[in-house]
């Protein structure tokens, strides 16, 4: 081990002279790459994604009315300020794609896996800095392609983020299925390549580069979550790639993998023998694990943040690991619950109902463990802690309605209604967002050596929390009233007239919630430059990242890498004066680990 450390140190000194380009642009330092993901994935794409959702919400609340904001932002797609129906579907599609893949997959994992895996494990960098750089730049290309698709003549992809063929395959079916969809598919191909390179790197790093003493059961739960997330990604993303490639074949080369017997716009197409349901299977084989790719990092971050700020060990550390593994395993065998009413064999529906509802068990274990961690804690309400508690709250609220959607018999009537929209936004959208924000507030001092303003953080959390419930809680009920999602306007259905006022209230909460993110953005950027200087370990945390050099050097630690002697949650341990004992402190004579 000693030899390894010496070698690494040598290695790092050779690289000391860095130019602007190798330091900030084609950087191989995991900390810089994490920041690159943060700015491209979370901030840039996040702003676009949120803005799209606000445009959609305004259309739903005040349907088919001229609106100066539409006129200003959408231009030719809002003739006389009235949003076009095709562009509404494009907004639905792009909002979903951007938020799920770019913000909550690449943004969340890219930022925090990159930042924390080497630092919390005591490694000088990722296993391959070069692959890591490559992964980021593939992601960058994917981002550029996806954003450029918004500006093509016929508009971006508009078949929903699930891009079911034939709608997504035929330009005759809708204008967005032309060049916009081609760019979407190519962008996703780059995205998947990036995700796979990134994930492989995370897995290899976690397996090989743990510092001395960092056994698997001494890893922080963040690392466990990132590790398992990467494994799920490696298993499921290639399936989406194959689906995308086959769809490209169908679209451009005349094959019939997903298409058969189609008569559209007065002509019979040549396709024969394919099945759209096959695409649905391939898509959801990624699509459902994707939910956990989004959620698990947030679970990991929440575990770390809650333990640190409650000054109390996470309750049931091993149970938490087992439940992460159980969720990961189950996540790969439940995809069919998205397809109960696609004409799939009802018996298969029964199997998927069974496996789906099983996920409630490890999820319940996690929720109760968080709550027990708070019990008799010494809770320090720093902004990250607020978001972590908010995370547990929305994880429960959103997760519980999964019992309805996972039950095939009940799904019949709420499938594809606003009930679904409310469910997944709470359980994966808002929850993952809370986890991400908790992480940003918590590790901001590590990333930038500065503190964020706490009062702005408090305002940010409470307004976000109220808006999140204000938007998504009533949405369950309009869904149970039968209002289908992805409708450009509900005015053709007098049946739904009594839901119009609820839709307006939801939109107002959405605008409020989106606006308050500007406070966060301001706080973040202002604090980056003018924030108060952070101390070495501002939250008095036990994990290794807070022992690294504050100078952000490539190689993380100036001298030797610290060794690990204990688990990561020795908070308020009896026998110590301080209420935390860092992982690199040796055990006292006769002290039990935990």
């Amino acid at each position: 081990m000693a030899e390894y450390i010496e070698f690494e140190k040598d290695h790092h000194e050779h690289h000391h002279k860095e130019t602007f380009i190798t330091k900030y642009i084609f950087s191989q330092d995991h900390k810089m790459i994490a920041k690159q993901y943060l700015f491209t994935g979370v901030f840039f794409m996040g702003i676009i994604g949120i803005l799209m959702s606000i445009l959609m919400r305004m259309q739903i609340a005040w349907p088919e009315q001229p609106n100066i904001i539409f006129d200003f932002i959408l231009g030719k797609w809002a003739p006389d300020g009235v949003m076009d129906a095709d562009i509404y579907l494009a907004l639905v599609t792009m909002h979903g794609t951007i938020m799920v893949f770019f913000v909550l997959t690449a943004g969340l994992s890219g930022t925090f896996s990159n930042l924390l895996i080497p630092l919390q494990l005591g490694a000088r960098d990722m296993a391959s800095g070069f692959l890591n750089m490559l992964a980021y730049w593939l992601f960058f290309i994917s981002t550029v392609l996806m954003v450029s698709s918004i500006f093509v003549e016929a508009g971006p992809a508009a078949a929903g983020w699930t891009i079911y063929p034939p709608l997504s395959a035929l330009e005759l079916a809708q204008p967005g299925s032309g060049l916009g969809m081609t760019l979407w598919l190519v962008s996703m191909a780059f995205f998947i390549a990036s995700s796979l390179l990134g994930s492989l790197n995370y897995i290899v790093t976690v397996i090989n580069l743990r510092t001395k003493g960092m056994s698997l059961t001494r890893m922080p739960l963040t690392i466990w979550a990132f590790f398992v997330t990467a494994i799920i990604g490696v298993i499921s993303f290639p399936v989406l790639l194959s689906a995308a490639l086959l769809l490209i074949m169908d679209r451009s080369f005349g094959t019939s993998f997903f298409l058969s017997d189609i008569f559209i716009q007065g002509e019979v197409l040549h396709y024969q023998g394919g099945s759209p349901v096959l695409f649905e299977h391939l898509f959801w084989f990624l699509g459902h694990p994707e939910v956990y790719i989004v959620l698990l990092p947030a679970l990991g971050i929440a575990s770390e943040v809650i333990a640190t700020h409650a000054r109390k060990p996470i309750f049931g550390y091993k149970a938490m690991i087992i439940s992460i593994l159980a969720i990961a395993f189950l996540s790969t065998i439940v995809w069919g619950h998205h397809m109960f009413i696609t004409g799939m064999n009802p018996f298969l529906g029964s199997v998927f109902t069974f496996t789906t509802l099983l996920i409630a068990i490890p999820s319940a274990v996690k929720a109760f463990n968080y709550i027990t961690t708070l019990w008799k804690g010494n809770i320090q309400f720093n902004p990250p802690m607020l978001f972590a508690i908010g995370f547990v709250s929305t994880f429960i609220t959103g997760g519980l309605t999964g019992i309805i959607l996972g039950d095939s018999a009940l799904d019949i009537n709420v499938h594809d209604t606003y009930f679904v929209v409310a469910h997944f936004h709470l359980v994966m959208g808002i929850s993952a967002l809370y986890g991400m924000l908790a992480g940003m507030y918590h590790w901001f001092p590590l990333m930038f050596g500065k503190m964020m303003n706490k009062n702005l953080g408090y305002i940010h959390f409470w307004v976000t929390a109220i808006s999140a419930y204000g938007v998504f809680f009533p949405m369950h009920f309009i869904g149970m009233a039968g209002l289908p999602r992805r409708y450009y306007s509900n005015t053709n259905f007098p049946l739904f007239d009594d839901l119009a006022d609820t839709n307006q209230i939801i939109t107002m909460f959405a605008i409020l919630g989106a606006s308050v993110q500007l406070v966060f953005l301001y706080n973040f950027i202002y604090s980056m430059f003018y924030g108060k200087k952070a101390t070495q370990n501002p939250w008095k945390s036990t994990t290794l990242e807070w022992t690294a050099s504050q100078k952000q050097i490539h190689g993380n630690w100036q001298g030797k890498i610290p060794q690990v002697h204990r688990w990561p949650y020795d908070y308020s341990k009896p026998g110590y004066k301080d209420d935390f004992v860092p992982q690199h402190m040796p055990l006292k004579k006769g002290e039990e680990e935990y």
Partner: protein
Amino acid sequence: MISVFIVLILIFVSISLWQMIKIFDLSKAISGVKIDDSQIANDKDNTTQAKLMLAFLAFIYAITIFSIVKYGKFPLISNAASEHGEKIDTLMIWTLLLIFIVQIITQFLLYFFSFKYKGRKGAKALFYTDNHKLELMWTIIPAIVLTGFITYGLLTWSDVMNLQKDNDPMVVELYAQQFNWKARYAGNDNVLGKSNVRLIDIDRANILGLDENDPNAQDDVITTELHLPVNRPILFVMRSQDVIHSAYMPHFRAQMNCVPGMVTKFSFTPTVTTKEMRENPSMIDKVININNIREEKNKELAFSGEEPLDPYQFDYLLLCNKICGKSHYNMQMKIIVETEEEFKNWYKNQTLFKNSLIAQN
């Protein structure tokens, strides 16, 4: 341009507010009051935030009660209009009950603990790492409860989806295309004629692609309204000619995708006629409420010189519930459930397929 101004004004207002707070802080510093600018929560913050936690718990409860009162009477949670619909509704109510109980308890524990165990300087938390009994408890209890719900759910599911159980259902085809629905009745033989989109011949008005030589097709009837006799099992056979659509009949708790290239099936027995549903007290309330809303809107429309909206009368609907293109939001078909006799009278006046074809040359 006004929107840009509004945005700019909002930004300036927030910046000035922020500056004022800073001036306030600075003036405090000058007057000698020591400020904690560590940006780490102190006891004062902990106390305030702990109280807010409790207030937020109250907010969640309030929004829950408000929603149940406001939306609880929606006919879509009660008043199913099909035989299996009532079973689904019962399951739904039990599941909702479970969800509300768990939600109320867990949110209480979460926010109450947050409130109660707020940090104090110098205090120490309890070092409590695990307790196998507790963990076993919240593994086994959810497992037992879920076993019950899974079993109940699966029994209901197989009940709903078992297409063979009905004796002699009436066969009706639902045919989807961008952006409308057609219904095809099988005629006296109750067997649908063979069909394929490749046989569509617009010039001969063979719009659903029926096999003109198939004897079973001759007495098929194609309509743009779906009439169903009450209390008679119906087997829906679904097709789509272009993209995936979904036949969603919320009042009957029925939904099934229509997939091009394949045939999907769903079956139910309507139990309440349109007329009966219109006379249902809660439906009368709903319709009155909707008409009041439309009256309000008419006042606005009259003001801007537009045509008023028609008064609303309840009808069952078939909606498209799978994104299918530009007019997805307006792809609907009226469903009329009527007595056997009314149905027969209506059916008599429909044109048979063989008579609907336009002879060429």
